[in-house]
């Protein structure tokens, strides 16, 4: 009952109510993973689907995302102490020379909505930073964004950095942004590509789900 209420409050973007309900659920002894999955992540799934169906806009989705974050803030210490892992860890950033962040921010927000932990490196990110951060946090996915046709080619420089460091195989590298095509993604050796923000989140989520069962990461 109260998990459904949490879901509803997230969907409506009622951050304060979400906080209260999450606290109440914890007090009621409901398992934190149930609150997380059945309450928060589930609700963001519904919100994301509404967005894909053109029923709501990004601003409404962002309000829901903030409500979810409010709930997550309460759960996080409990999840860590009980050894629950996030659904996945993602490093994201806009490629060097490119100052655009709107699209990248949307992808980050939607990824968070799937329950992933997202590290946003911001804009104009040097190639090597992607590798460093991915290694530092044992990421599953690296997302690289570009908005300009004159910065898109710089995406091709990032993957060789992973190769040089001998860690290419550890990461699922995804690229996206207005000028990026599937053919370009393939040409530079990326693992994934999405034509827009919601597909990026969906694709990343699918990858994380499928890879979980393979116990893929020796180092994590």
């Amino acid at each position, binding site marked *: 009952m109260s998990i459904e209420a949490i879901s509803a409050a997230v969907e409506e973007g009622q951050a304060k109510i979400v906080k209260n309900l999450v606290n109440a659920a914890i007090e009621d002894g409901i398992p934190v993973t149930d609150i997380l999955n059945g309450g928060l992540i589930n609700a963001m799934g519904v919100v994301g689907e509404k967005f894909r169906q053109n029923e709501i*806009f*990004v601003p409404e989705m962002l309000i829901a995302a903030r409500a979810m974050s409010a709930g997550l803030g309460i759960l996080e210490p409990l999840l860590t102490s009980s050894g629950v892992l996030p659904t996945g860890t993602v490093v994201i950033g806009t490629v060097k020379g490119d100052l655009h962040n709107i699209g990248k*921010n*949307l992808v980050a927000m939607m990824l968070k909505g799937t329950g992933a932990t997202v590290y946003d490196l911001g804009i104009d990110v040097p190639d090597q930073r992607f590798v460093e951060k991915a290694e530092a946090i044992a990421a599953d996915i690296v997302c690289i964004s570009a908005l300009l046709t*004159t910065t898109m*080619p710089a995406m091709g420089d990032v993957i060789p950095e992973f190769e040089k460091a001998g860690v290419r195989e550890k990461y699922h590298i995804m690229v996206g942004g207005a000028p990026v095509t599937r053919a370009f993604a393939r040409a530079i050796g990326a693992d994934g590509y999405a034509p827009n923000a919601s597909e990026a989140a969906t694709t990343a989520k699918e990858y994380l789900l499928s890879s979980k069962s393979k116990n893929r990461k020796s180092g994590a």
Partner: protein
Amino acid sequence: MVIGGGQILPEVNFTLPAMIASEETLPEAQKIYREMINGVLRRAKELHAKEIIIELETLPQYTENPEWGISIHKIVRDTMFEFEANHGLKSVMRLTPNDLREMNRPPVMRSGKYWDAMARIFEQGARDGADFLSIESTGGKEINDEAIVNADLRTAIFALGCLGARDMAWLWRNLTEIITGAGAFPAGDSSCGFANTAMVLAEQGFIPKVYAAVMRVISVPRALVAIENGAVGPGKDCAYENVFLKAITGTPISLEGKTAACAHFSPVGNIAAAVADCWSNESVQQVKLLSGFAPVVSTEQLIYDCRLMNIAAEKGQALTMRDWLVESDCYLDPQAYVLRPDVVFEISNEIVKSQSPFVRTLSAARLTLDILARAVEKGELTLGRREKTWVDTLRGQIEEIPQDEEVFIAEMKKELNTRKYSPAEYGI
């Protein structure tokens, strides 16, 4: 060449295909620019165009390293001079360097290496024969970027009406001095990073179209500041706020619509042409289509568009054509509706009641929402259900904004994170 004399002229803009813009690739880039301008001028000549405007928007890297940008501009401009001498095709150059000042985070608006680089290319470009100089300035964009995806009108009004307007005054005073000092015309600005970003996000279904329509209108007071500080037109193609500028100041304007679909999709494909003096493709890359290179394709399309509109004008029926262009789009999208001549006059009248850019911005937003609500009621504008609720949401946002700018600025300075922007850079 007379711009704004009742004839509409094609304005062609082209850019590099996907490639890295660096010192190593500069010779290749120069070659491509030479090919592009030659292709465009040749086709214009073949199609018996009498006059053409070329816009060169430099790539950020070419403004940051102004000598690179200057070399590209010189190649293009010299080719235009030669072509005019050899083939009699008149052409003029609009050079649009980038606003690099946002490359510092928070942006440094009034000094520093980025401003120096910009000043250098504006001056030398004008000396090398650029006729008109434009920019898409970014004062306030650093806080608007987040506001836009939240459909946060309050922050947008602060970004455009307070920060943007202040920056425009400083920027255009300085640009006008540099540009006129070098013998060229300071043409105009565009709220591209604000209103056009909103339009593009709205086309993708990310934010409400009514929000994008309001963004368009509230970029007008900011744009007027450029004219008050020396800009003389023709206004830049992607600045749909130009329609209001023309109504208020009579300045000649460039616009873009369906024939700029190569650069961005648009809800105002025809109506944008209604009162335009120049008709643009916005920007197209040197990629090969089945016929030939895309810049040449755009050139042909613009020339035929202009031929048709000019024939109507020749027959004394420019107003008939204007009305058809307006009617073709205005009932289908709020962003088109606000560009109707009658709506433009109504809003323009409201805007000129005050001298304060902030008051202008606030009242323009309020009136726009009233007009859209009225249009829906009258059945003149169809809005989806989820769009309609946003009219009221945005009205609610406006009600919370104080009428007094100083009070508003004080509130916003408290609300906003100064890691994102520096109030001092705007003199507040």
